[in-house]
């Protein structure tokens, strides 16, 4: 083969760079490369000249200056005396908080709505269709503004809860108070606090949290070992030992013990003066943003779930019944694994969208990454170029991490083709 071509190849002429398909792609790529480099050089040269004209430099030193502004929600300790860098990290953590909460809630709601749309109940299916169409076809910004307006305009102020004839009442057995400034939630409190692990930079983890994580992860590992043992016994003898009470015990008992040991209990918020104290006061900007993101994304996830379930052909469940599988085994062993394969890739992009859409926090004044690094820091230091570049890179890395993580999961549930 090779020697035939070697003899047939004509000597190289310059016109072959344009006319010969083998060389043409090379020529084309070289031209494109030169053009791209020229464009990049042009942009960088312009930037340098503009920076010089404005008397600015390109350096990230401003990140280590004093920030001098307050942030309403701080997952890690932060004061106005901290650096811009720490303010940006606080913003990033706030982005992550709303993104994670939103992804979880949107998935739960989306799956419920998606399944309900397939329900044989005519009325309920129609209602869910209306829900999906309404939320999908209006801008997310509208939903954020509406939910925020509901919270700030309709809900009572905290002092409406005061007195014996209060005009407003708390819900969920006096545990949650919805006010027009914040939502007062109960917090977890301990009578037997073990103290905290100090990681430096004033970031601390309570030992109790660490203990719970260790116990839960350990329980998960033991559960897998028990199931592997059960599988082994089943392979050898054909009888599967009953394991559900063992796994349940492994998963719950240690946690229950820790709850008793640390004296963990819920502490409900109570009205002191004009405000609720004792509980956790979550600002309405977070609640409104979270709720709007959840409702909007849930409508999209509902469609994805519905499409995924419809994509599994009817013959699959009929075949499973023919094999004698019970309905719930059919669901978990036959339908769900196939539906998940269709559902997960678009679900990943919905999670990414939700994370990126959380930057609309600007509409409600929630201090996320855009609000700190791309907002107050940018305005105070006047470093547009550095702040926006850094912000975009952070979002990019965040997106890449999410999609990489979800791709690993996707690879695990994907059809194993051999």
């Amino acid at each position: 083969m090779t020697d035939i071509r070697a003899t047939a190849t004509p000597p190289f002429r310059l016109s072959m760079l344009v006319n010969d398909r083998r060389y043409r792609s090379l020529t084309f790529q070289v031209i494109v490369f030169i053009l791209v480099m020229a464009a990049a050089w042009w942009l960088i040269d312009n930037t340098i000249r503009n920076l010089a004209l404005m008397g600015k430099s390109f350096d990230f030193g401003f990140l280590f200056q004093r920030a001098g502004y307050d942030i309403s929600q701080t997952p890690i300790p932060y004061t106005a005396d901290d650096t811009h860098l720490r303010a940006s990290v606080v913003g990033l953590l706030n982005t992550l908080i709303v993104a994670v909460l939103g992804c979880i809630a949107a998935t739960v709601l989306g799956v419920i709505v998606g399944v309900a749309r397939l329900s044989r109940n005519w009325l309920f299916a129609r209602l869910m269709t209306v829900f999906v169409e309404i939320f999908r076809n209006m801008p997310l910004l509208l939903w954020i503004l509406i939910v925020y307006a509901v919270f700030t305009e309709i809900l009572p102020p905290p002092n409406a809860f005061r007195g014996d004839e209060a005009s407003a009442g708390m819900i969920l057995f006096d545990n949650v108070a919805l006010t027009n400034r914040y939502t007062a939630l109960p917090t977890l409190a301990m009578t037997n606090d073990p103290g905290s692990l100090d990681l430096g930079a004033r970031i601390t983890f309570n030992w109790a949290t660490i203990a719970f994580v260790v116990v839960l992860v350990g329980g998960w590992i033991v559960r897998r070992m028990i199931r592997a043992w059960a599988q082994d016994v089943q392979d050898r003898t054909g009888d599967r030992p009953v394991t559900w009470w063992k796994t349940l015990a492994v998963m719950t008992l240690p946690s229950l013990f820790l709850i008793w040991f640390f004296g963990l209990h819920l502490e409900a918020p109570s009205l002191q003066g004009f405000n609720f104290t004792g509980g956790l006061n979550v600002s309405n900007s977070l609640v409104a943003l979270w709720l709007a993101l959840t409702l909007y994304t849930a409508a999209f996830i509902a469609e994805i779930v519905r499409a995924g379930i419809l994509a599994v052909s009817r013959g699959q469940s009929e075949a499973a019944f023919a094999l004698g599988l019970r309905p719930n085994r059919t669901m978990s062993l036959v339908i769900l694994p196939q539906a998940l394969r269709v559902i997960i890739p678009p679900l990943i992009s919905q999670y990414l969208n939700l994370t990126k859409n959380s930057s609309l926090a600007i509409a409600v004044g929630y201090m996320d990454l855009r609000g700190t690094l791309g907002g107050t820091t940018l305005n105070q230091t006047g470093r547009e170029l550095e702040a926006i570049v850094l912000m975009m890179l952070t979002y990019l890395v965040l997106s890449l991490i999410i999609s990489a993580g979800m791709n690993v999961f996707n690879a695990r549930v994907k059809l194993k083709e051999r």
Partner: protein
Amino acid sequence: MSDTHAQTVAFVRDTMLPAAAPPIRESGAVRWLRENLFSGPVNSILTVLGLLILWFLVATFWDWFAHSVWNASSLTECREIISATWGPDARGACFAVIRERWNQYLFGFYPQHLYWRPTMTFGLLMVALAPVLFSASLTIRRVVLAITTLVTLWAMVVLGAPAGWLVFAAIVLATGLILSERNIAWMLPFSIVYPLLGVWFLWGGTLWGPIFVLVGPALGWVAWRLLSRLSPLLATVAAIVVTLIFWLVLAGDAARDAEGLLSLSIESVRSDRFGGFLLSLTIGVAGIALSLPLGIVLALARQSDMFLIKSLSVVFIEFIRGVPLITLLFVASLLLNYFLPPGTTFDIILRVIIMVTLFAAAYMAEVIRGGLAALPKGQYEAADALGLDYWKAQRLIVLPQALKISIPGIVSTFIGMFKDTTLVTFVGLYDPLKSMSDAVRANVEWKGIYWEPFIFVGGIFFLICFGMSRYSMYLERRLQRDHR
């Protein structure tokens, strides 16, 4: 045996009985209810739940809608009318704000005496879209174009358009109607010229600018014709280079000189006067029209065998998809001053359109790549076997099928982009949703009005987006070629 048996039976039915009516539980409304609403305990509970939700919605909002006021000049007056008519405790919507600020929601701060220009632009858009979008059915074409003609001309008369322009619009609309009866494809030249005409109508200024923008590609075409016999590649390159050189070097001066010789100007309108749905539609339509071709090019580049082209495309797509649109808009409003030669300024709406286009194009590229990947390999091989070169294969075999497969994704990208046009509020433009409503609320008369503007703007967005998704379903059905 059988005979004797027959003798022993006292009665044998030899005619069919008339069909009896089905039992009441198995027919009509009762059966439908039993099957669809109360087929089991779970279903019954769901039905009750659904009814409760419906009841809650109706009970909460019915009074508010039923007591709505459409004719008042301030929120206080609205409330007075409501309490006078329905008692002191009654709540009611005050849609009078929409009636009062209708122009502002539609046109923003566009000069009032020029409202007819955006109206005409939008009417002519329908004519320009006719050969592209609804070319299949004569009935649909007739209905859409007739309604457009009537509404546009009526609105232009009401808004006080000059007689000359009224005649112009009437001629174009009538031509569209007549050609749609014969062969709508003859309207295609108008569709090609329309974007430039539209820009001229909206922003005003001199017509020589758009004319010389068109001259560029015309010169490029001449260059292509002259050189295409020598080498097609060389001709293409020459055409692009000639066009670009003409645009960058000659077009500006030529337009200025021509304007000096013969003035073809209409009153110009600055970008900061744009607002409301005029702004959303301008950005949306421009973004849609530009992002599809760019998305196709990016998708083809990503599927290319050439390493450099492929990696550039991957980097671009993944970068754009990895950052929120809002940061790109900030780049447009804050950073473009850094990237362009010192002293350059260009229009903020144009910058936003560019960013929105790039953003949508990256998503579009991924959607179209899905379509390209879904195409059976045999199609590519068949194109090769026919001896088609790359562009012919893409144009005649691959893209028509790939684009057809990706229609739902393409349209949802369009819908997403149209919804995202509301984000321009964060770079200081007057979108209908936030900035315009804030501007309305800034007046003393309408201070504290929230829900009515939200419902109005949301309703219009819903109509447009829902309409687009229905259109994509229709298109899918129309283009379906396989037998199922």
